[in-house]
């Protein structure tokens, strides 16, 4: 009851404000304070907005007129508005100085609270907006990036809904409406202002075309429709009417309205919505007892989509009061059309939606609207991001021309005809397969372009795909003919295999993306190891760049003889590194010569990581696995830049991550700063020695790895200024620590900070998410539905069975003697006990 009163008051207040201010301006004079008045009011702690007038210029008089008009508006918010005439008496320090000439001041709690340049407070709207904004400074948040917004949503989840406003320019009527509403509802909702850019993008809105907008983020109650890619986001509803105080108010009211109301009356006798929803259309859906659960689901789905547009009522048909004919499944009532109800028969939810959005489009003519709508619908459809992107692309057939379709019949011939055949095994219904098929085709096209320019027939790579829905025998490696299939049955889809004639298949185990696959294919073209027999070959091995602009890792094995015991594990290791690392083998005379030249003891394995100036020498292992471990360790960067692609190889080390987040450099200075920071980190790694052993120092460049942005936002629940240094993934716990923002990042102080963390004297800034990943969406519980249906239909079913018996008897009566059949049926009533003689056995 009290909340009702409160709402009424709020409405009244808002109504007064939006409607009344202009007319009233003429009647009230601007209060002019004497110095004593001013001091008195100031000391009483009242909130005052005061201009200290020195002179009268046309600009100033214009401002004063506006100020006068705002007095009344601001009064409702407990702000007194006035001026002090400095020509009459001086109030220091405001009556002197250049600044005071162009500034109006806000006083609060006996102090100067804020000053406003007259350029920003130029009319009633801007004065009210800016003053309220200043007062509400603590409550309204500014958000610049999507990560910030995400962090806010995370904080608000379960507690408060969020009202998100985008105001195209400050000091406008829209800005004022937003502030006035925030003043009234500030304690109820979290108000956020956005400045456009990335956040608008997240909301699916084009900044250039959009007018001021408000969105409502349903964070308080966990939505059942957490169907977006990650369930961290709150469901959002866009206010579709123009941003005015009244519209905003009724929009917020609507957000509080029950999603679906259930009624047992005929729609015609359901009252039109009353205060405060009297301007809102009503939509009626109908439910039957048998499908009640589903009907309610449907209604809820629709209600979410109609939220802010209409109120949804679910009418229970089983109630005798409901007279609506069965042929209709939807009814609606528009506010302006008195109480007239319209009945319709519609086939899907979109049609209902169109009833209301169509009108709206007429009203507003918003270009992006259709896009937005469609997007929403799809989001509610598929909650798997890969499946969704494949589904969205379903209209475009993949162009398979650049790849060869392999079948059980042409497989052997195709593989024999090229030195390297890359095969993708895919299932057409598997979303990941389809997504990878897209990348695979891109690689094929790129390779075809490259090969065309080179015309190098020998090194032609053949790109093929096997549709494992059809060619199951091939995918199961079942050889129909005489030739064996050179791979094991494929049980994981998609799989990419590299096939060479007369060799067993190599599984591609890298990232399933265009760039990684393309690079792997080019890198795996040279033999592995390449047998180097001349000085030129050695030079070209060390120089070779299989992919323009890419610096490969290289490994060179140097052995006295080809029959050295170390050669075979090296060759084996080289085989398994094929595609990732270039490997070369140097033996015999040339090896000895090379060793002598470089004063190395043979045998030796040299690792040339792409990032390093000096090669690392490894002793020769007796096993390929041992050698591989050493090679991989030598290839690891001591201070890697984490990227989406390389993170897994570093995470697998199991160390705590000390991550430096640096922003995108806008200029050379920024670039140099970033480089200096990375250098400092390198210094830390080197100077830290064993103390740094438990940590993997690394950095993320937010420009190249934008995904890092939301990572940082989630770590700290807000977006800190960059650079930021964070310690996470500690083996001991889930805490996340942030290096003090105001302390410069220096090796020594970072070490001290790490020490403090070890000593548990630092407070964590956040924690890692939980380990468990429960299903994001509940399953459709058929068992429950079947139970309900069975309960509903229990009595009718029994009747049905009786009927059946009757029918059988009737049949018999028709064609044979009555008594006879009654006899037989009574002696064996259940049909099952009376098995029939006929059969096709």
């Amino acid at each position, binding site marked *: 009851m009290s909340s009702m009163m409160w709402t009424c008051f709020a409405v009244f207040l808002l109504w007064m404000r939006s409607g009344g201010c202009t007319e009233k301006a003429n009647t009230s004079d601007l209060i002019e304070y004497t110095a004593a008045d001013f001091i008195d009011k100031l000391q009483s702690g009242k909130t005052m907005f005061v201009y200290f007038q020195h002179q009268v210029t046309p600009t100033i008089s214009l401002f004063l007129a506006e100020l006068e008009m705002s007095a009344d508006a601001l009064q409702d918010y407990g702000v007194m508005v006035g001026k002090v005439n400095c020509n009459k008496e001086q109030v220091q320090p405001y009556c002197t100085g250049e600044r005071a000439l162009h500034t109006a001041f806000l006083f609060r709690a006996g102090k100067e609270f804020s000053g406003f340049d007259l350029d920003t407070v130029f009319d009633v709207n801007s004065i009210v907006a800016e003053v309220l904004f200043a007062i509400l400074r603590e409550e309204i948040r500014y958000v610049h990036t999507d990560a910030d917004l995400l962090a806010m949503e995370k904080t608000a989840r379960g507690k408060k809904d969020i009202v998100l406003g985008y105001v195209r320019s400050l000091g406008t009527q829209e800005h004022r409406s937003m502030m006035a509403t925030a003043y009234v509802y500030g304690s109820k909702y979290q108000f956020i202002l956005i400045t456009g850019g990335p956040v608008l993008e997240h909301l699916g809105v084009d900044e250039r075309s959009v007018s001021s907008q408000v969105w409502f983020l349903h964070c308080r109650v966990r939505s059942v429709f957490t169907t977006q890619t990650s369930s961290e986001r709150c469901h959002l509803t866009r206010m579709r009417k123009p941003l005015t105080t009244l519209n905003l108010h009724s929009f917020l009211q609507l957000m509080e309205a029950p999603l679906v109301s259930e009624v047992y009356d005929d729609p015609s006798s359901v009252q039109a919505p009353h205060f405060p929803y009297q301007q809102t259309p009503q939509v009626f859906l109908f439910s039957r007892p048998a499908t009640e659960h589903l009907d309610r689901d449907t209604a809820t789905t629709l209600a979410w989509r109609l939220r802010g547009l209409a109120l949804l009522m679910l009418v229970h048909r089983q109630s005798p009061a409901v007279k609506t004919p069965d042929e209709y499944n939807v009814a609606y009532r528009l506010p302006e059309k008195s109480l007239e109800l319209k009945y319709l028969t519609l086939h899907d939810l979109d049609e209902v939606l169109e009833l209301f959005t169509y009108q709206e489009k007429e009203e507003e003519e918003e270009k992006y609207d259709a896009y937005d709508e469609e997007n929403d619908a799809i989001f509610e*459809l598929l909650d798997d991001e890969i499946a969704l992107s494949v589904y969205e692309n379903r209209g475009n057939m993949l162009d398979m021309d650049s790849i060869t379709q392999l079948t059980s019949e042409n497989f052997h011939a195709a593989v024999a005809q090229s030195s390297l055949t890359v095969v993708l095994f895919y299932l057409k219904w598997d979303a990941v397969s389809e997504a990878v098929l897209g990348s695979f085709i891109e690689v094929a096209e790129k390779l075809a372009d490259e090969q065309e320019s080179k015309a190098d027939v020998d090194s032609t790579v053949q790109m093929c795909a096997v549709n494992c829905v059809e060619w199951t025998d091939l995918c199961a490696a079942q050889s129909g003919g005489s030739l064996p299939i050179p791979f094991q049955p494929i049980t994981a889809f998609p799989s990419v295999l590299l096939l060479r004639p007369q060799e067993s298949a190599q599984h591609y185990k890298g990232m399933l993306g265009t760039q990684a696959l393309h690079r792997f294919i080019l890198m795996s073209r040279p033999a592995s190891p390449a047998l180097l027999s001349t000085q030129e070959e050695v030079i070209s091995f060390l120089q070779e760049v299989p992919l323009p602009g890419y610096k490969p890792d290289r490994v060179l094995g140097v052995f006295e003889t080809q029959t050295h015991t170390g050669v075979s594990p090296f060759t084996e290791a080289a085989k398994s590194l094929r595609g990732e690392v270039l490997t070369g083998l140097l033996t015999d005379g040339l090896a000895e010569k090379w060793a002598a030249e470089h004063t190395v003891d043979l045998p030796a394995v040299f690792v040339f990581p792409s990032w390093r100036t000096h090669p690392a020498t490894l002793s020769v292992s007796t096993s390929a696995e041992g050698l591989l471990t050493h090679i991989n360790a030598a290839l690891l960067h001591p201070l890697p830049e984490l990227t989406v692609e390389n993170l897994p190889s570093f995470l697998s080390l199991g160390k705590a991550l000390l991550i430096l987040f640096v922003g995108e450099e806008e200029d050379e200075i920024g670039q140099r700063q970033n480089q200096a920071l990375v250098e400092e980190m390198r210094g830390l790694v080197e100077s830290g020695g064993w103390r740094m052993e438990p940590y993997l120092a690394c950095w993320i460049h937010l420009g190249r790895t934008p995904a890092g942005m939301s990572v940082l936002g989630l770590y700290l629940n807000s977006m800190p200024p960059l650079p930021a240094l964070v310690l996470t993934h500690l083996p001991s716990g889930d805490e996340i620590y942030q290096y003090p923002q105001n302390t410069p990042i220096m090796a020594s102080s970072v070490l001290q900070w790490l020490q403090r963390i070890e000593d548990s004297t630092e407070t964590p800034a956040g924690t890692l998410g939980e380990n468990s990943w429960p299903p994001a969406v509940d399953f459709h519980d058929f068992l429950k539905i079947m139970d309900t249906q069975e309960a509903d239909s229990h009595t009718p079913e029994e009747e049905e069975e009786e009927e059946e018996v009757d029918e059988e008897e009737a049949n018999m009566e028709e064609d044979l003697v009555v008594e006879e059949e009654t006899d037989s049926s009574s002696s064996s009533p259940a049909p099952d006990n009376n098995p029939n003689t006929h059969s096709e056995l």
Partner: protein
Amino acid sequence: MDSSLPCFLLFILIGCLKCSSENENNTRHHDYCVLGAGPAGLQMGYFLSKAKRDYVILERNSGPGSFFNKYPRHRKLISINKIHTGRQNPEFNLRHDWNSLLSDKPDLLFKRVSNEFYPPADAYPLYLSMFVEELGLKVRYGVDIGRIRAVQSDTGRRYILTDQHTSDYTCSVLLVATGLWVPQKIEFVGSDLVEGYESISTNPEDYKNQAILILGKGNSAFETAQSILEKASHVHMLSPSPVRLAWQTHYVGDLRAVNNDLLDTYQLKSLDGLVEARLEKIVIVQRKEQAKKRSDGKKKEKKKLYLSLNKYIQNQEEKNSSEVTGEDLPSFYSDNFSMRKPYDRVIRCLGFKFNFSVFDSSACPPHSDNAKGRLPGVTAWYEGTGTPGLFVLGTAAHSRDYRTSAGGFIHGFRYTARAVHRVLEQRYHNNRWPSTKLLTTQLLSWVLKRIGEASGPYQMFEVLADVILLRGSQCEYVEEFPIQALPQFSSLSGHEISNHGLIVVVLQYGKKKNVDYLGRNRAHSDWSKANESNFLHPVLYYYDKLPTEEEMKLRPKGWALPRPKAIHHIVEDFLTEWDGPVSHIQPLRRFLEHCVKTDLRNFYAESCFRFSLTYRKPPLFCQQGYLKQQGVVDSSQLWQHFDDAGLMPSEHDSGTSGEDSAFPNYLAQAGASVSSGLKLDF
């Protein structure tokens, strides 16, 4: 020396001959004896041969599949031979090939011997001969086993089979695939006046202008009716229950549309008709026609057969069926009795029964509870109840799914034979049922693959089903297990059930009765109402532990399995292709997620990157893909972007590495010398 060697060899040869001839006369032992070289016996023979088991197939006739030399009498098989499916997938194609047997030879299919949709019966023995020959199956023809008994010895139970020459075959496991060939008869007064399907003339001319009564309303009855329809004056069909149409019951043993011309002529009132009565209560009596004296003085005597009922027969004890009076006939009491007119012939088409007579009491399986006891009773894994080591295969094993599934037909029992073989391999050779180990993230794909192509669960719906053993991040997929044996799953298959539970993937028809299969609302397309599907559709049952025998016994009527913890219906599909992202895949994924209790969604590498950094462990898909460096990159992103990401990191490091004390300075020299020549960035 030279001469003694051949002598020695000769001695050995004689010895061998002697011992083998001893075998010939007395006993031969095999681990497995298969009785009958019909489709079921040969199918089992193939599996035994492939597993390199010691087996023999015994056949009393001179060739395989001799039943088909005589039956069906009118020589048309009604098992469909659909060659063109538009698909290459051999497994899928078996869904529409009802005649081929299973083998690993992709071209050993029935279509090689016939391309007719309803093939001629003669093609079948031809196909079976080919099957025997190409797979080199060991069949002994002309061995007529007349007696089978079981003996218990120290080494276990053995079966002893005695043939017409009193030779014995002993075996540890006996696989009875003798089919059903003894004509089913019913005793009633006058049953001796009835001709049998097995011996009637198949020449329609012989029925010209005759009134025919056929006992039975199954496919053999209708097949007979169909062949004489054009010549006979009346064809009436009599059996206790109304006709069941296969296209309504989804049971291929019920009347197939290919044979149902008589339904037309009955409904269009063309002198044919169907009647219901219990056959035990009928009486067939013979009355001489009231013969008129013809001009030549000879009496033309024609015997006519009348149908009566037990209760109308006066003085039943004394009466012989050929001496009846009008008072013995129903028309005497009811002048519009439907079958008041006499018949020229009464033909019995009541099907066949299992030949129990060769079994000694020590080896005789019991009569089944259903099918009027015409079939042997077997366990859910087709072992005779009370006869361990004796398994029944083929049509004779139909008591398990009588009137419900396809276990009595080639396209069904070829799969049950495989299931039995797997039971044998586990029980006698410790070879667990074959299974596929999968990452749980691949499970969805495999379920979709199986429901999209698997022929076993499709033909043997509600009988054979795939069992998925959940094991957390991994699972094991076991195909085509006989689900009635689910309580014994662990011992039969050799696979343990973990505390993660199991999922059974069953294909089943809707349970709703009185569906108008050609009417409106016969099919659903809304996935959320999939449980109301009428046509064959996949249903997944999730259990946290194996159901017990008790639960299996007390399961709700009409259910293939006891009540599960959760159930999922995939909505019936017009094309039986369950691969729609919205209607089929997503709801299925959500169900699987519920069973494995984890998020099974796919994520692009970028999302996995985010999850990996902000959670201790990312979702399963990221764990099993991305963290193993096999993330899926969104191909919609631009090339440029990748190239940047790939190139940039290395640039920062050039020339900045400090002295590396771990490396002696000669390497620096080496680098220097190379780089001077190569301009390498050493």
